[in-house]
């Protein structure tokens, strides 16, 4: 294969892949996992369950060895998770003992340390200077919560830290939305910075770090679940709209108002539980071209629906475009007149 052909085929492969809904969904999930660490655990579980179900369905009945590959992968994840779990638990216990809270500040050596904590709207970054086992100064390097939270607790807390020279748990404000998260994030950032100045402060091993970042990120909570639910809904609509834009001629289906006025004038009206032609237009929007192809034989092509449609959509035109898309999907060249296919 020449390089130009490979290049051509590679593009073709990519394009064909993008035409598959499963590949697109995988890409959406991957994008979310990359930019949204706390979603990784949930997405990993969903991915493993989905792949497991698919593989079980495809390979288990035929006793194909691919099924056992999957079982091996799941076993690897389970063992890895167990290993990371034990490591994380031990490290966390060790950290509690050496956490630079209160009197444990004595263990922190003098120096300037940078630490991060998760606030209400993102990562808070601070620079802490320690001298003579006392906190001498705290500089805030990044503070995204500034835009949304009435945050006079933070300067107050900082003032008290500097006055005491050591870290202590702040009293949680209850009235303001996001304020507890912000204050906790700030506290965690200071603690993270101080822990870097503690000799032999327990740390996760490299395997646990990679495993946690790859599969878990940060612990999922209700906010993560809600964000995922919203992202799921948004991606699905995006996907729903994109589907009909990827196949020529089917884009008109996006315009459908679902008003059903076309059904009222259609001489066929309903076939196999599908309202004609609106149901076929909606199936086209969904990308179910095979079903449209099956049912298109009932369309008599009279065009009354087009005259009745409030935005001038033509049922036969959309149906014929879906028919064409179905033929192309099957890999058979269609040379007939589009108008006759519907």
């Amino acid at each position, binding site marked *: 294969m020449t390089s130009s052909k490979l290049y051509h085929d590679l593009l073709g492969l990519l394009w064909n892949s993008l035409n598959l*809904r499963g590949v697109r*969904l995988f890409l959406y999930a991957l994008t979310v996992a990359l930019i949204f660490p706390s979603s990784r655990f949930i997405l990993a579980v969903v991915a493993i369950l989905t792949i497991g179900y698919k593989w079980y369905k495809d390979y288990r009945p035929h006793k194909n060895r691919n099924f056992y590959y999957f079982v091996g992968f799941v076993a690897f994840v389970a063992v890895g998770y167990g290993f990371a779990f034990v490591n994380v638990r031990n490290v966390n216990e060790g950290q509690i003992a050496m956490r630079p809270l209160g009197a444990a500040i004595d263990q922190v050596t003098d120096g300037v340390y940078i630490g991060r904590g998760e606030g209400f709207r993102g990562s808070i970054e601070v620079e802490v200077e320690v001298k003579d086992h006392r906190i001498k100064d705290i500089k805030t390097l990044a503070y995204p919560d500034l835009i949304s939270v009435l945050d006079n607790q933070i300067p107050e807390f900082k003032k008290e830290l500097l006055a005491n020279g050591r870290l202590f748990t702040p009293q949680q404000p209850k009235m303001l939305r996001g304020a507890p998260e912000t204050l906790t994030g700030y506290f965690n950032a200071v603690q993270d910075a101080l822990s870097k100045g503690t000799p032999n402060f327990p740390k996760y091993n490299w395997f646990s770090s990679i495993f946690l970042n790859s599969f878990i990120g940060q612990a999922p909570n*209700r906010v993560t*679940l*809600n964000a*995922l*639910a*919203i992202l*799921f*809904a*948004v991606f*699905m*609509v995006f*996907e*729903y*709209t994109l589907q009909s834009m990827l196949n020529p001629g089917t884009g008109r289906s*996006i*315009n*459908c*108002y*679902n*008003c*059903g*006025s*076309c*059904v*009222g*004038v259609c*001489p066929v009206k*309903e076939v196999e539980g599908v*309202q004609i032609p609106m149901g076929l237009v*909606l199936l086209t*929007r*969904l*990308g*179910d071209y095979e079903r449209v192809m099956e049912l298109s034989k009932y369309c008599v092509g009279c065009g*009354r629906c087009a005259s*009745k*449609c*409030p*935005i*001038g959509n033509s049922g036969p035109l959309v149906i014929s475009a879906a028919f064409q898309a179905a033929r192309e999907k099957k890999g058979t060249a269609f040379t007939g007149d589009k108008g006759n296919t519907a």
Partner: protein
Amino acid sequence: MEFLGFITLGIFIVLMLLTLFGYIRTPVQTVLVLSTVLCLIVGGVFRFVAYGWDSVVLLPNEFLGGIILHPITALLTGLFLAGGLKASGGFDALKAILGYLRRSPIGLVGTLVILINLPVISSLPCGRILAAALLPLLFTFGFEGGLGILSKSQLIVLIGAFTRNSMGSCGPSPIGGVGQIAEGFLGSFFPTASDGILRAPQAFALMLGTAVVALFLKFVSQKLYPNDVALRNAPEGFDIGKNSETQVKAPIKGFIALAIFVTSLLIAIFQPLGKMPVQSVLVTGALLMILICRIRLNDLLEGIILLPVTAMAAGFLAAGALAATGGFTALASMLNSLVSIKALGVAGMLAIFVQFQTILPLSCARILTAALVPTLYLFGPAQFNFLSWSQLAIVMAAYIINATTSCGPSPLGGGGMMGEGTMRAETGFIKGAYTFASMAVMAPMAAIFMKFLNLSVFQPTDPRFARDIIMIGAFAIAIAGVNVFFIFLGSKIFSPDASKNFWIQLVGFLFSGAIGGGILAFALFELEPTKILQGALGGIIAAALIGLMVPKMLSKRLTATLSGPNV
């Protein structure tokens, strides 16, 4: 800046009117985006000239601030759940339950009443979901549909009333309903507004309005447009109502899906597991349906109805652009100048304002609601101080029910066209009935309900509670009684002359509009005769605009083609 506001408001209104009257034949969302772009361009140029580049840079943020994500995503997840319900046979299960009811002591009539009110009972985020699933079932009740239980006239009433109830059920929906937009605004004063302060007034008004629609369709519409429904009557000798019982069977997974659906809805409403967003609950419900009822992701996608989702998003964009360029301030100052007309005053202006979306019905109520609720909010203590918070809540209730029902009579692909399609009627057949009920019954009733229940004593042990309930009952009887009387009176004096009938109908609209406006003014200002008269005048103006847009006669094209030799 005020001058700019008038320009952008003009762009928005002109584009909407051109779409409504069919001069722009493109999806309304596209027109809204066009309006947004034009407003932003004009606003950008104006700001650049007046304040410099920095002011232009702020413009995108200002207009994007108009988008409220919650109702959009809640609506989407509600649609997924409905898609899952449909794919797993949940609607068949519903039909089976209705079949059991039919054989129960409540009989056919009781079942039909429940069926007609099913949309408001289930309160889905878009009325089209249930209408698409159940309208074919309703059609089967007629002679053409096979069962032959109902005559042509009865079927028209059934389909029309059911569609009316559907295209309004998006208002009280707790899962992304239109009412949530207004509840969000009221939340700035009423701490629990987002829990559903507008839900009960809307649901009550919708039920009463549905009954009036049924009567209007029976006694007015069928007389005004006698040849514009192509449904066939049963042949002579066919015994209507004596047909054999047919049993609808539903798969077990349909019942499970229905149980999941109802449970999700209850959890979303009552939050028994602690506060959690509606979206999380509904997506979890949809995923449970995938796991338990073995449906596909595609089935969830099938539930999506793009129109309300995109209309709401586009509506928010247009509203954001108007807000950023001073369009709302211009609108508010225009309405303010209406207030300064002594004959109208605040009461008259509000009586017109609450009917705005019935005057200008678009394919989805969310479009204008997103744009007009902020304006209405400005009438309260937030800016103009025309109204107290309680009065604002009363107007909001009246406005929102009117807005949510506006997709019913819309000729722009509104939900009512589904009903017209099912009853094989010309476009516009249901418009008179739907607009009349929204204007004359639903808006005043919602206002009264809000005043005497939601904003009043809510302790059943308190004697004032009983008094308020009696007041609501009395008003309901009075409002329904007067309008039913008009309907009967109209039906008696209609003649074969369509032109004369149109004017008779218009007079009925004017009388009902006056009463509706007066009641709204009473709900707001109690027994102040001047205010009540001002409200009545506002109601008459709104009713004239609504009544004049009801078609005098319908085209006979459809009837001719469906009954002609070509079929």
